[in-house]
């Protein structure tokens, strides 16, 4: 195991402590209301009683965008190790990556043509 991971993990712990510590400090400093009104715990909706559920069905384009993100991330995941050896491997690695990216951009081109990534 790489020792740096332990340090990074410790850093995350410190960050958590920052967040939790602030909440802890607040629980001491906080002013408490003498009388609790049920109105205070209403969901905010511009002063009106909330109507219906806060749940709604979102458009499928959210899913397309998220999927495209995953696909481009997968692409990047392949590019990261490739990038570290590009200098040594030379032209063949370059050509492999160009082909890879070109094939992927075909999908992007199709998406733009079909306006699949248009938001409205």
């Amino acid at each position, binding site marked *: 195991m*790489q020792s*740096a991971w*332990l*340090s*990074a*993990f*410790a*850093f*995350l*712990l*410190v*960050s*958590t402590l*920052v*967040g939790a510590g*602030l*909440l802890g*400090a*607040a629980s001491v*400093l*906080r*002013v408490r209301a003498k009388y609790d009104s*049920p109105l*205070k*715990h*209403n*969901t*905010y*909706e*511009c002063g009106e009683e*909330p109507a219906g559920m*806060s749940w709604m069905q*979102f458009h499928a384009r*959210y899913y397309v*965008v*998220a999927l*495209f*993100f995953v696909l*481009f*991330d997968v692409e*990047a995941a392949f*590019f*990261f190790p490739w*990038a*570290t*050896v*590009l*200098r040594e491997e*030379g*032209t063949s690695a*370059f050509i492999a*990556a*160009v082909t890879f990216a070109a094939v*992927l*951009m075909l999908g*992007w081109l199709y998406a*733009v043509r079909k306006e699949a*990534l*248009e*938001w409205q």
Partner: protein
Amino acid sequence: MNELVHGALYGTLIATAILSTIAMGIWFERKFAGRMQQRLGPTIVGPAGLLQPFADIIKLLQKEDIVPRDADRGLFDLAPILAVVCSLGVAAVIPFSPSIIASDLDVGVLWVLGIGGLMVIPTFAAGWGSNNKFALLGAMRAIAQSVSYGVPLVLAVLVPVVLSGSLSISGIVAWQAQHHWFAVWPIVPGLPAFVIFFLAMLAESNRIPFDIPEAESELVAGITTEYTGAKFTLFYMAEYVHTLVGSALGAALFFGGWDGPFAPGLHWMVLKTLTLFVLIYWVRWSLLRFRADQLMRLCWTWLTPIGVALLLVSAAWVTFGGTN
């Protein structure tokens, strides 16, 4: 165990530095915005209002903690802490000088992108957990924006990775110190990649002109609509941490990090980071806000293909450019 102590020690140091920078940064931003808007900004608390951030924090911590009746209590409470962790955690692998780095991870770039990308989880938890329509709308907007701009962000970050051949941030900075800053040379993949990085970073940290997730004129306060007091403070803090850490990352990846003449490395890193930080303020207080569809169009029809092209150009530079 030694590493654990090292990480905790440097983590505390860096977190403290970041948080105090943000406290003063907020004061500076308010002064800065005030001057831009023909007013003075804070003047009352302390000399030139210098103690204003502390007054703000104490005020916010004193506020009553109100949880909506219909909220998902667990997620509602967890989200602000997660937001701080995800934004602050990124700083773990950023070298502030050749020696000041919490964790010199060999896949530092992946850590940055991965932990930064986790921000969607607290956003969703807050939006969904509040059971508020504005919060949910804001959360979904934030997720769509964050995943969309994640793509140009990854592509832009790949450019210095390709040019230096290293996945570690300190490795990238060291390479720049030996050769040249990427924003300066090679100018073609370097500078445009920085511009894309900058835009994507603005979008990831929800800054104007990309602040549609919290667009207060439309969604009241987006995901933080139902939050009060300390929990709101944490979200507010996370946003500033995100911006500051993003600036530090930009300085490290494209402007040579701690590299610079005359002064020690830390000075240069701080100077570069703060310059980018102020640049973000400047953008924020001058521009209006995009609409969701315009934001998406900018990302997918322009930034993404340009990012891929820049990636290939930098690969060509490395393969055929020769010398370094």
